């Protein structure tokens, strides 16, 4: 369990592909209103790309997210979601009623911006949770 799993070919391929995976994850998040995509999918793609680097490079990994950071990211994501709901209450609406948030524009656009906010929260929560579960299950000491 302590040695690296990959070969030279796998290592080079991962180095080439991971930036595109990360960009694709962010694209799936911000373009989720107009095409298939959204918070859960973006979170899975972002988490899986970091897990992939960890799997291939083993203990000699120099780039990644530790368990503590991943738990912090996941809790921040869940907090963003609940916080947007409470912010809607502060501006006079119901819980999670994004139409009253103080953005410029007509109501459907304001609701779309609120939706983007909670999708960001979902993305951070899912990505952080996946990374922490993987890091725990492979039993790496830090």
């Amino acid at each position, binding site marked *: 369990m302590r040695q690296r799993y990959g070969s030279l070919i796998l290592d080079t391929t991962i180095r080439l592909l991971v930036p595109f995976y990360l960009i694709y994850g962010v694209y799936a998040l911000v373009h989720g*209103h107009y095409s298939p995509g959204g918070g859960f999918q973006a979170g899975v793609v972002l988490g899986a790309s970091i897990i992939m680097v960890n799997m291939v490079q083993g203990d000699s990994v120099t780039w990644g997210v530790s368990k503590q950071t991943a*738990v912090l990211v996941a809790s921040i994501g869940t907090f963003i979601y609940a916080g947007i709901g409470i912010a809607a209450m502060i501006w006079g609406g119901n819980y999670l009623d994004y139409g009253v948030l103080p953005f410029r524009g007509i109501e459907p656009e304001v609701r*779309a911006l609120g*939706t983007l906010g909670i999708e960001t929260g979902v993305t951070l929560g899912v990505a952080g*949770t996946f990374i*922490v579960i993987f890091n725990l299950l492979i039993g790496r000491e830090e």
Partner: protein
Amino acid sequence: MKKVTIAVLFLLSFLFVFASLDLAPTSDLNSPPSTHVSPRYIEMGYKETGALNMVTAVLADYRGYDTLGETTVIFTAGLACLLIIESRRKPKR
């Protein structure tokens, strides 16, 4: 043991086939799931939420409270995983 299991599951398969005959056929336009709430989501989704993707509209706006619960479940699962593996047993007194 395994023969009993197979026999019970064989009987259960007849129950499943019998129950499936009460469901709407696949790709029926007038099935109950397609006539109850989903026309509202399809017709009014863009006007009410500003999201062209109806799945996002339903996920994050119409059923946002539901998704908050799901996110909390995922976060709690990660936290439970951390506590189960990282916890050390108490020394015996």
